[in-house]
């Protein structure tokens, strides 16, 4: 059993209304010194067996085509220790 984490974030140049809303709330709640907030998605994927190269290649494909929208998002994939 291995655990793979895929993080999907909007590309930096793309507007992130969600992050902006959180920033606004921080300010109203008296939390200062925060210069930026970005909100993205986190996927925790549990594999049956070991994270073989094929398995990871598959997941990279999924991260690229399904979990993220390459037009506006970028992803990172890592096997959790």
């Amino acid at each position, binding site marked *: 059993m291995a655990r793979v984490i895929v993080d999907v974030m909007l590309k930096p140049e793309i507007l992130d209304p969600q992050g902006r*809303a959180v920033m606004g709330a921080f300010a109203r709640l008296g939390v200062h010194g925060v210069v930026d907030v970005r909100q993205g998605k986190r996927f925790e994927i549990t594999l049956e067996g070991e994270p073989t190269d094929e398995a990871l290649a598959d997941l990279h494909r999924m991260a690229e085509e399904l979990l993220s929208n390459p037009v506006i998002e970028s992803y990172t994939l890592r096997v959790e220790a």
Partner: protein
Amino acid sequence: MKIGVVTFPGSLDDRDAQRAVRLAGGEPVALWHGDDDLKGVDAVVLPGGFSYGDYLRCGAIAKFAPVMTTIIARAQQGLPVLGICNGFQILCESHLLPGALTRNDHLHFVCRDQRLRMERVDTVWTNAYAEGEEIVIPLKNGEGGYVADDATLDRLEGDGLVVARYLEVNPNGSLRDIAGISNPSGTIVGLMPHPEHAVESLTGPSTDGLGFFVSALNRLVNA
């Protein structure tokens, strides 16, 4: 009888809630999220919409608005509060009602005329209905799936705090088909469907929603 309707940034059904109060014979009073003064209202409606865009979590940011600080305090002392859709989400986020509302199980926003069974009819907001009465009012939400742990659900059922249940279809994956709940004293009610959109036969699927507002006025008059 004055019923306040709160407008948060991103509230959408606030005018509709005011109209419903008026048609029920009450006096709607506009309350502003940034103002902690309740202007002497006898009850409060938290209307539907997408407060603060609902980007983070529905109702998550609205609960911190100045007006909510007052409403939470007063509600705990018995001020009647009806939370509709986004308002229900705010009530849960504020812990005035148990549980939470999550993404619809089918992952789509859904707008439909929804049949409900009224189950608790002794609350401030539902006393105009008969127990077991079936009504049809609009439902429109993307995050309306009611969830809570089994203990909480059992307590809600056991204490008869379930106000309304979905009939025919469960439109969002709500546990035990729960459409609305109340606090034990029946002053606070949260409801996912929209009674304020069913107050005129011209613009709604029925006028079944009027009862929620009439109920409050009845209770307030007789109080």
